[in-house]
């Protein structure tokens, strides 16, 4: 009985989340129709950190965070799971400077840093990492908490 009630509550939250996502999508489409453009975002921090590209996939029993870390030294990879967030840090193999780009001409980029927030049912303390060294890509597999 408890399980069905919990499932029902979860389902309602999922419906609300999907509804919110749909509204957000519709809103973006309206903006796009009028302005014909998308919000651009910088992934270069003035503190010398870079934001990596990530992709989060969900299956029945886990979340998989795929992180693209080109030029990273994967030996320095550090991943911390706390509450429902996963923090990824990794040093670059070499310093990057872009002197012709005046916005960041005095910055030396040395590290990737990214915090990924997962839903409440992610058991971030039990994450596992799979490395694809030839691509400098990692997969962080986070199981979902066991439901009673």
């Amino acid at each position, binding site marked *: 009985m408890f399980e069905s009630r919990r499932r029902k509550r979860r389902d309602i939250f999922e419906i609300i989340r999907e509804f919110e996502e749909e509204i957000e999508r519709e809103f973006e*489409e309206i903006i796009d129709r009028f302005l*014909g453009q*998308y919000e*651009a975002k*910088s992934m270069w921090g003035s503190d010398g950190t870079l934001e990596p*590209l990530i*992709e989060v996939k969900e299956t029945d029993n886990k979340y998989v965070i795929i992180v693209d870390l080109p*030029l990273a030294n994967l030996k320095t990879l550090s991943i911390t799971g706390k509450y429902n967030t996963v923090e990824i840090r990794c040093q670059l193999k070499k310093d990057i400077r872009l002197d012709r780009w005046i916005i960041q001409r005095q910055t030396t980029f040395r590290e990737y840093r990214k915090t990924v927030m997962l839903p409440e049912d992610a058991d971030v303390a039990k994450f596992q990492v799979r490395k694809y060294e030839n*691509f*400098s890509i990692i997969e962080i597999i986070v199981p979902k908490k066991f439901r009673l």
Partner: protein
Amino acid sequence: MEKLLSQEPLYDILGVIMYYTEEYDGLTIFETKEIKLKTPSYLMLGLPDTGLVASISTSYIVDALKMEEVGGVDSYRYFPPITVIHNGEPKPPLRIFHKDNTLVMISEIPISPAAIHPIAFLIVDYARKKGIDHIVSPVGIGVPNRVNIEKPSVYWTSTSKEGEEIMEKLGIKKFQEGFIVGPYAIILKEAKRKRVSNIVLFAEAFVEFPDPAAAVEVLNVLSKMLNVQINLKPLLEKAEEIRLKTRELMLSTKKVLDRLRKGYERQLPLMYV
């Protein structure tokens, strides 16, 4: 549809010579240099798409063959209000380059859904007017198990017999079943409708990350098609740096692709059942 065609060189407000300018449904295409195309002529497209395969491969061709910038496409209606500055000079977001028998169009920004149809129509119309023999679209086709593929495969399709003959000689497999979504899909349909030859090269690629290795495979095919030597070693050496430097373009392209329901490309078409 509003059009302005000019045969004689015109001057724009800054005194730059315009050899050709045309307005097309909110887009303006212009040539700032006289273009004499040798035959067979190709128009190669570098519009951001899956894995940025087209963007990376065409930018590399422009650099490797030292192609000359000869024009561009701009739009106050469809493009964000930006000017790209390269080597101290303002440029339009979509630029045209030329050398011998090849034109290359490269976009610095993803093509928003509202702009896809007018740009596709403009490209096919422009190719027809320039007497281009083949429009070449290098397309990334997202494969979910890309991390397990060392050497991405390249497939092709064509709207013309001549295009088919070229590709069959190169010994590459034909793309048999599947969906394409995005600007290249509309260009393909429009080219077929207007009887313009469009050769589409599909390279297996990452869906969400830039994929220079897929671009290398496309460039291998393009160098044979154009019959030119392209040294790919620098691209292989700089692959990781390119991935790092194209993160933002990939992110904004991915947002557009998601909006276009790019997931269709991983579905099986009905006729195959």
